[in-house]
């Protein structure tokens, strides 16, 4: 029975430890409830902790408001928020993409942002009903194998990807929100028939499906495939991790008028339970301030949406990336896109 005794002692020790750590979070949450104590704002963040925690720390330093950030996948957080409904402890939802914000808004859970807070953001990048706003822009690019292709050989239009020359050499992430938003935008600009024909062309050309953009970039970086459709900042993030000289993959933007040149946004909205919470409103305004926007440019290599902030080196100007105007809020027909992707067999 000595094994039992050892386990029992371990259990007692760890229970004490767990009670401590559980106690800490309990006290911090109850501190948030009391008025005079340092304010605590609960944020549900679809953005990764690795990336965004330093920014949150900066906010706390500047304003004194503590952030209790809950990290997760944007879509799963959206599902959780809808499941929680009015009982949600969250005050702010900082989403990796506009689709998740739209879904939470459609469930009636977002409160209007304070008047004028998001005025600096171009109308195309925020909700017309004022319930959410984009914070940074994420451009679609083609990642290509730098060893096998030169920059001039890379197609300048996504329509070229169905060319037999690229058979079995193209990677996409059909379950990824960015890809789906891009397809929805393509449907709006070029029409359903052309988009469906393009998707079918991709499938016939042996397109490879990946779960995430990061995996596509890895595949291009190891020479598994020659081309991949990803968001622009993935390359910059990986280069920061391993060094740009070690990157086999390179990125290229498609022509400005091409549907492939599409910009999605990471955005933020205030939950209806925190509609009059000044801390939440301050957080939203702060994210759109020049210093925060500059932080994004320098650390995540995304596009600042507020004019007047310098973009990262080497990136084409944001204005040049928009094809025919596609306001993000109009990308509400996600179910239609999903049906189309399912019909062609990509989902």
């Amino acid at each position, binding site marked *: *029975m000595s*094994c*039992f005794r050892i*386990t029992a002692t371990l*259990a007692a020790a*760890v*229970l004490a*430890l*767990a009670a401590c*750590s*559980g106690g800490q*979070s*309990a006290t911090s*949450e109850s501190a948030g409830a009391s008025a005079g104590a340092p304010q605590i704002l*609960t944020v549900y963040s679809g953005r*990764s*902790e*690795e*990336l965004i925690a330093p920014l949150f720390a900066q906010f706390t330093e500047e304003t004194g408001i503590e952030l209790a*950030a*809950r*990290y*997760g*996948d944007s*879509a*799963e957080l*959206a*599902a*959780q928020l*809808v*499941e*929680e*409904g009015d*009982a949600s*402890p969250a005050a702010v939802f900082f989403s990796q993409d506009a*689709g*998740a914000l739209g879904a939470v808004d459609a469930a009636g859970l977002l409160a209007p942002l304070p008047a004028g807070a998001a005025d600096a953001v171009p109308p195309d990048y925020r909700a017309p009903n004022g319930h959410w706003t984009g914070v940074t822009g994420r451009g679609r690019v083609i990642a290509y194998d730098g060893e096998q292709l030169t920059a001039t050989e890379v197609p300048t239009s996504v329509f070229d990807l169905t060319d037999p020359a690229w058979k079995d050499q193209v990677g996409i992430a059909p*379950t990824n*929100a960015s890809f*789906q938003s891009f397809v929805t935008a393509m449907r709006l600009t070029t029409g359903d028939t052309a988009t469906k024909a393009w998707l079918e062309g991709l499938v016939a050309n042996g397109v*490879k*499906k*990946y*779960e995430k953009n*990061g*995996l596509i970039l*890895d*595949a291009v970086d*190891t020479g*598994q495939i020659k081309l991949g459709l990803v968001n622009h900042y*993935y390359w910059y*993030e*990986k280069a*920061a*991790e*391993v060094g740009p000289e070690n990157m086999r993959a390179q990125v290229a933007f498609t022509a400005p008028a091409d549907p492939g040149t599409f910009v999605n946004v990471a955005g933020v909205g205030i939950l209806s339970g925190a509609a009059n919470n000044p801390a939440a409103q301050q957080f939203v305004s702060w994210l759109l301030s020049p210093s925060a926007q500059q932080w994004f440019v320098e650390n995540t290599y995304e596009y600042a949406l507020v004019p007047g902030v310098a973009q990262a080196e080497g990136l084409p100007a944001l204005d040049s990336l928009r094809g025919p105007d596609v306001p993000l809020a109009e990308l509400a027909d*996600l179910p239609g896109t*999903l049906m189309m992707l*399912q019909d062609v067999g990509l*989902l």
Partner: protein
Amino acid sequence: MSRHGQAPRTLVALSGVTALVAVTPLAYLLIRVLDAGPEKITSSLLRSRTLTTTVTSIELVVVVVAACLVIGVPVAWLLARARLPLKGLWIVLAALPLAMPSYVAAYAWIAEFPAMSGFWAAALILTLVSMPYVIIPTTAALRSIDPAMEEVARSLGRKPWSAFWFAAMPQAWPAAAAGSLLVGLYVLSDFGAVALFRVDAFTRVIYTSYRASFDRTSAAVLAVVLVLLAAILIYAERRVRGRTARWRTGSGSARRATEVDLTSRQRLMAILALTGLAILGLGVPTFSLLRRLSEGARRPLDLVELATATANSFGVSLLGSLLAVGLALSVGVLAARYRTRSSRALEAVAYSGHALPGVVVGLSLVSLTLIVRPAMYQTVAALALAYAVLFLPKSIGATRTSVAMVPPVLEQTARTLGRGPLQAWLETTFRLSLPGIAAGGLLVLLTAMKELPATLMLRPTGLDTLATELWSRTEIAAYGAAAPYALTLIAVAAIPAWLLTRATDRASRSADGDTEAPARPPLSTVGA
């Protein structure tokens, strides 16, 4: 020999509570499905993609279970019966893959062999990671089987192998079958490996419904299919397990079987096989992770963050495991002692949620805590409850089997000597079956440490486990930063895996020469 009399009402009531807790995810699914309406249900189910992905999932289950049995049972025989050097080391190595989450193993293999993808790659990884579910219980069962039956078979003219196969193996089949059930349910619910290898399995369709379309209703409809598949597996395992008794009913002493001597060539081949298995299951992923580790990361490793995550992982998993064992006790005892229809039904209900992907269980518990006790939402208690619900079957199986190994006559004797019912039970059956129950608890502990989707949803804001930290780094492809967390997770989970093998070893070793009581119940069907 089991009682068919009336089960004590308190026992049934307690089991009812456990079943109620276990049925939460199913109840959630049912409510969502009823929300959906018949049109949506039929359109979700009858899509051709649903059919093809279901078939792929079933094929994956069949292949992985078959591989685990075909490789696992002979390995179990080697570990239980053959005379090999460093036996203890091989047993531990055979159990250690349990410490490796499937998504870590998959991503480590892809890092080494980027071309790996598809059905067979996923089948390989899932087999390597879940083989211990078959090996451990079968080894324990083989070690504790009384050799008398085999000797009788030999004396009646059978050759050694034939005697083993027809006399001894039938006693070990239930252990192997129970292990295969867990393997099958695990393969059905796994998302990490199939997603990384780009296999169009059923879980992928469910996750797509949640992530891509925020559509909880059609995802719920699809999840019901998984429950049905799980029910089929559970029924199949029941048939194989049968109704045989597990303890000696005659006189005489129980002995351990003597070890078989192998020729030096056979011994070499056995060692090569075991080494090969260890390299594939442990060596390759660990090497790959170490390589990523050396490639560096953007932010330097924060040791405090790592230590906190480790303590949290261990602490919450331990709570979950204790809760699971507590809840499983009543159902396990009921199923072992009173084999009535209702006890079997209760057991089946408790198992049924095991095939569900973590995201379904997570969302169902979000609903449950918010409805029943909102103050408990996003607390350590809710997370421990989630783990208990998710991994209840592992504990039930272990409890049921170890209790079934103890003859009721001991308890009855204690009663005649004047002990009260509860005291008699505690001093006899409970004490003897404790190693098996503890093994079930260790298994739950181990699996809870690797759990991801439900943890993400239910943990208190700010509490990170090793699994969530690992996930947040791989999400942004920061593999160099993820490697230390992956390695720590494997190292920490290896502790309960190792304890599991030690307990098994001790239990079967103490079965020598005991003429008064039957052999102490081994940790067979750890996963049963």
